[in-house]
């Protein structure tokens, strides 16, 4: 059985600081989830349960929040999470073509993870970079003003990073 997740001393200190910055405990859920994500690598059932118990809110409420947002790293996400912005500006500038290109290159549809476990593809809501549409976010990095060639190049680059063991 996997070890029960638990915040480190540092993370707990951070969490207490979040609580002091919000009028209600529940309001600190978003940053706490981000903290949990950084601490545990992803948000799976055990991690969400831990946050719920820690914050004394129902696990279902945490589950609802995690699934509402597209930008939390959920359990089963590949090493590289390609999140293609699909909201208005990017959609007008061809985000659908970007998604199609990635799907073709990786053989996965949005919401899926490649068999090798390297790539996950999602269509996400606005990432606030409308001036450089179309764009995608790979893990913590923005890749902006994309052409289809850029997409191919990015995938190659990520593959070689993975084979060299460089942390994406």
């Amino acid at each position, binding site marked *: 059985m996997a070890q029960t997740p638990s915040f480190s001393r540092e993370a707990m200190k951070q969490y207490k600081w979040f609580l002091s910055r919000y009028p209600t405990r529940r309001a600190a859920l978003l940053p706490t989830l981000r903290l949990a994500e950084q601490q545990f690598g992803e948000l799976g059932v055990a991690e969400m349960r831990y946050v719920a118990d820690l914050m004394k809110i129902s696990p279902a409420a945490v*589950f*609802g929040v995690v*699934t*509402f947002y597209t930008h939390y790293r959920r359990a089963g996400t590949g090493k590289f999470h390609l999140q293609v912005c699909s909201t208005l500006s990017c959609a007008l500038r061809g985000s659908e073509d970007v998604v199609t290109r990635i799907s073709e290159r990786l053989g996965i549809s949005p919401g899926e993870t490649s068999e090798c476990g390297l790539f996950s593809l999602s269509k996400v809501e606005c990432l606030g970079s409308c001036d450089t549409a179309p764009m995608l976010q790979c893990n913590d990095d923005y890749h902006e003003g994309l052409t289809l060639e850029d997409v191919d190049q990015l995938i190659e680059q990520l593959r070689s990073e993975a084979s060299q063991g460089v942390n994406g």
Partner: protein
Amino acid sequence: MARGDTPMTRWLLNGQEVENPTGMTIMEAAREHGVDIPDFCYHPGLSIAGNCRICMVESNRSPKPIIACSERIADGLEIKTDSDVAVEARNSVMEFQLINHPLDCPVCDKSGECILQDHSYTHGPDRSRFVEDKNIRHTKELGPTISIWGNRCIVCTRCVRFCDEISGTGELCVVERGDRAVVDVFPGIPIDNAMAGNTVDICPVGALISEDFKFEARVWNMDRRDSVCGGCARGCNIEVETLDGYVKRLLPRENLEVNDWWMCDHGRYGWRHLYSENRLTTARTANQELEDDSATSTLADFVSRAKKVAFLIDPFLTCEELSLIHGLSSSIPDSIVGGWLPPKGTAEQFPSGFTISSAKHPNRRGAEKIFGSKVFGKDGKDLLKALDSRKVSTLIAFCGGPAEEGPGSSWSEAIRKARKRIVFSVMDGDWLKGASLVVPATAPLEKEGTWINEDGRLQRARSCWKPGDEPFCPELVRLQQVQMACEIRTRCLSAAGVFRELAENIKAFSQHSHSDLGDGGLPLSRRRARVDSKGGTR
């Protein structure tokens, strides 16, 4: 401007000047004046969410339509519920609600009592302009009794708010967003609280489905009767729905004095024993089965010739049945009466104030009013002693509970010591062996009469049987026939008639009659206030 002490607000509803208590929402206020504003997410027992938008109305204070469920009335506010703006807003919302809805009413259990269906009929378009593919959302079990048919969900969040606010268990949430949003539970934590069934009732569409009722009946084919749940001493007001004389489901009925809009799952699903194969439906003597009529005459024969008679009563009997037993016992010299109680269950209290009583029977209070407050205490013990020392020759016992072992081992052993024993029982069981006469008894949902709940509220229970369709003679009639055979009664009365006699004989009931009790019952100690000619109450 005040009605009593309540400050009032004057406002305009569809061009008419009206007045309501200050602070009311537009929807509640309009409904007081008979103007119905449609709703999905609004429920009087839950917090206001304002997410479905179907209740939009035109206001003079806003450039755009506003939602009537959350906006409050104000002096000088002008609301139009049937203007072009309001009608168009409603129609558009309806069109959006139906975009991804599967329109599978012909196979949907909610069909016929579905708010979406009703509003679609009144406010919706007669055809869809949506040519794209409808999206698919999950259909799965959320708990042992409830499943979600996600495609039908309109994400009103009534069920989610119920679990947060009323049951306080918080099992449900809305997952995903936009058109993918749907109700779900946290993985591995099913919805299994004791009030869960209510989420199905308050679902305005057929998204939450009761596994117990799924595909059981079309709602328009069922007969409905207002009754009271006999599962515990709370006495939740319920509707009993039957198809071809068989109970199909129980629903809670609004009564703010007792159960608000809710009932617990123990009561809701606690009727299956009615149709159990161990249900007793025919009378029998120690060696043969009896026709219903001859059972009554045999019973009358026993009673009229009996000596050293004792009556063992249960807390499931109605006040009317108890009154008839009281009549019989007082006509037999030296007869004794005691009562038995089923074992205590667990009590539960929910954050909303809704309670489940630990007393798993409906009418202890009524029996104590009629036979005295010691009937289940000292009188019961005395009767047990009398049985043990074989001082009882004929025992007439009532066992109206759902338990197959009857009133429990200590009682059934004692009962065997009576030379002649006549037992009214709902369920058949080994403990009935050797009884001189076994008579089928009505279970709580089959009784016509009144019960007094743990708060002392007198309420009317009604039988799920249609008059003339009774599978056997109910105690209310059988006991009267016995009284007639014993010549202490001249004619057989309805439950209301028997209650009238009870009100004449026992002071505690003297203020009441069946018709006064109405649908919601009354505290035994209080009479319904009568409205005098000036419109005030006295």
